[in-house]
């Protein structure tokens, strides 16, 4: 059984490094949206859930209202509550440890933890803590590098940063589109956002695309 911990730690490390690297894209997007380097770093430290962070700065970059930015980020963050419900009975932690566990409850820590089930509860817990902490460290370091780098570059359009942001969103949604149904949902949301653009204030077409999720998720397929 001596191999179990090392295999889990290896899973945790490779996921942390890969995902953490996305932080460069976030740091750059955040600065391009008008946030300072400090604010970009605080986003990654305090919000620490990638899709929500991207959404918040994305709405701000598109000229949307603060409430739309906050709302879009919160809606993308709701899945973390479902992860917490799954993880809490496995981790069994209280007090400060529960606060720490909550903060690092994201796609990756939950995913790696649950993938360790065959290796026992110890491996599940190690998978969660090592992945959560690892992503936290790398995500924050790379956010700083991306934000600082973007700040030094100047005009975002001149370096293609204004296209890197939608490309990052495309790159984030792409791996999720594993079935035809999900691809139809994505295409519908895009068309919906496009149609709503001239009619709604900036930012609202983004957040109102949740209606597409509601429409497609309403009935069991």
């Amino acid at each position, binding site marked *: 059984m001596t191999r179990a911990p090392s295999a889990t730690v290896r899973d945790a490390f490779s996921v942390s490094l890969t995902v953490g690297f996305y932080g460069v894209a976030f740091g750059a997007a955040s600065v391009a949206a008008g946030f300072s380097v400090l604010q970009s770093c605080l986003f990654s430290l305090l919000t620490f859930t990638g899709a929500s962070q991207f959404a918040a700065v994305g709405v701000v970059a598109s000229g949307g209202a603060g409430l739309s930015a906050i709302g879009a980020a919160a809606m993308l963050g709701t899945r973390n509550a479902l992860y917490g419900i799954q993880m809490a009975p496995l981790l069994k932690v209280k007090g400060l440890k529960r606060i720490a566990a909550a903060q690092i409850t994201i796609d990756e820590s939950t995913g790696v933890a649950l993938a360790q089930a065959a290796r026992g509860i110890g491996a599940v817990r190690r998978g969660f803590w090592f992945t959560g902490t690892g992503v936290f460290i790398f995500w924050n370091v790379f956010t700083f590098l991306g934000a600082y780098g973007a700040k030094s570059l100047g005009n975002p359009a001149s370096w*293609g940063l204004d*296209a890197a942001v939608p490309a990052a969103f495309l790159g984030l949604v792409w791996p999720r*589109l594993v079935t035809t149904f999900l691809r139809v949902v994505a295409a519908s949301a895009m068309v919906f956002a496009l149609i709503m653009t001239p009619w709604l204030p900036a930012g609202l077409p983004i957040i109102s695309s949740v209606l597409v999720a509601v429409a497609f998720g309403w009935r069991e397929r």
Partner: protein
Amino acid sequence: MSATMLWVVLLSTSALCFTIKFVGHSVPERWLANARLQRINALVPIALLSALVIAEGLVTKTHIALDHRLAGLAAALAALFAKAPFPVVVVVAAVTSALVYHAH
């Protein structure tokens, strides 16, 4: 957006996202066990991220604007079809967009 509003967005987003995570660790499982809620919740990231691609790539304020970003986005799409990893997708989009931007 004003400097104050940027801070409001940053701090409110952080507070809300942490609260959501903490609630998950604190409420009984049955509270969020509703099947419809789970189905919708699973689709929310796809809908929002897809809308963000459009809002960031094809929109300026409240009108559709097809410019250098579209070239970058097309390059990103090609890179994704070629199974390129995430950083490559982003860099390919940036370089393509910057080239088109400077060509004009």
